[in-house]
């Protein structure tokens, strides 16, 4: 993922989950912090789709259980490395 796209990803997570950019680490996972609950997950999906101009399949929405997993999925959708 390019540095620019990595920054966009961090920003998208920080915005959707309403957390500091520094809290967005590879290990950050769904439901491990109060801010990343199901409601925030929906906001996060909308944010990622908007920022990267993609439409995620439900299987990928379900699979997006961590920041690391989000990167993997975005690459699958052609977001540049």
């Amino acid at each position, binding site marked *: 993922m390019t540095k620019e796209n990595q920054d966009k990803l961090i920003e998208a997570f920080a915005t959707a989950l309403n957390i500091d950019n520094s809290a967005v680490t590879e290990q950050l996972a*769904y*439901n491990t912090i109060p801010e990343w609950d*199901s*409601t925030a997950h*929906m906001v996060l999906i909308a944010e990622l789709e908007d920022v990267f101009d993609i439409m995620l399949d439900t299987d990928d929405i379900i699979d997006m*259980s961590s920041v690391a997993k989000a990167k993997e999925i975005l690459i699958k959708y052609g977001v540049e490395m």
Partner: protein
Amino acid sequence: MELQGYHVKLMQLRREDLEMVRQWRNDPKIQQFMLSQSQITPEQQQAWFEKINNDPRHLQFVIYYKDAPIGAANLKVISGDALQNAQVIEPGLYIYDDKYRANLLAFAPTLLLNDYCFDTLMAQKLRAVVKKDNIAALNYNQKLGYQVIKDGDLVEIELDKLNYEKVSKPLKRLLSR
């Protein structure tokens, strides 16, 4: 009987599922949040199945995702003689597979059950009783529109159709693509 939607399938519990479900139910990670903490023997499981299998007040399901069993769900009548005539139904479920326990997918079987209760069985309300320390279940149900009607060591929560439809819309959109 089978319900399908939101990427999951609910298949009515069969005799051959009994041992798998018994082991799930006896696992401390599931058992700790059950109202009864006792270990269930194969004989008890068998006797329970014989009792509820043709009881119109109960429906028991195994939850499947991508053809793999991931948990169990059930519906039961709060009062009355059959699910078809019930005004208030108590749904219950647990996800056994760790991969999907803290995952958006955990909402899918509930959406399916709730749609069935409100749209097919024409229930007026859904009700559940949750242990006070089961914070995950309380939060989960709150996200689906349930409201607390009685607080205590056991928390009683209720959901009506209007609230369910309003609150579940964004979740349904994500899980219906």
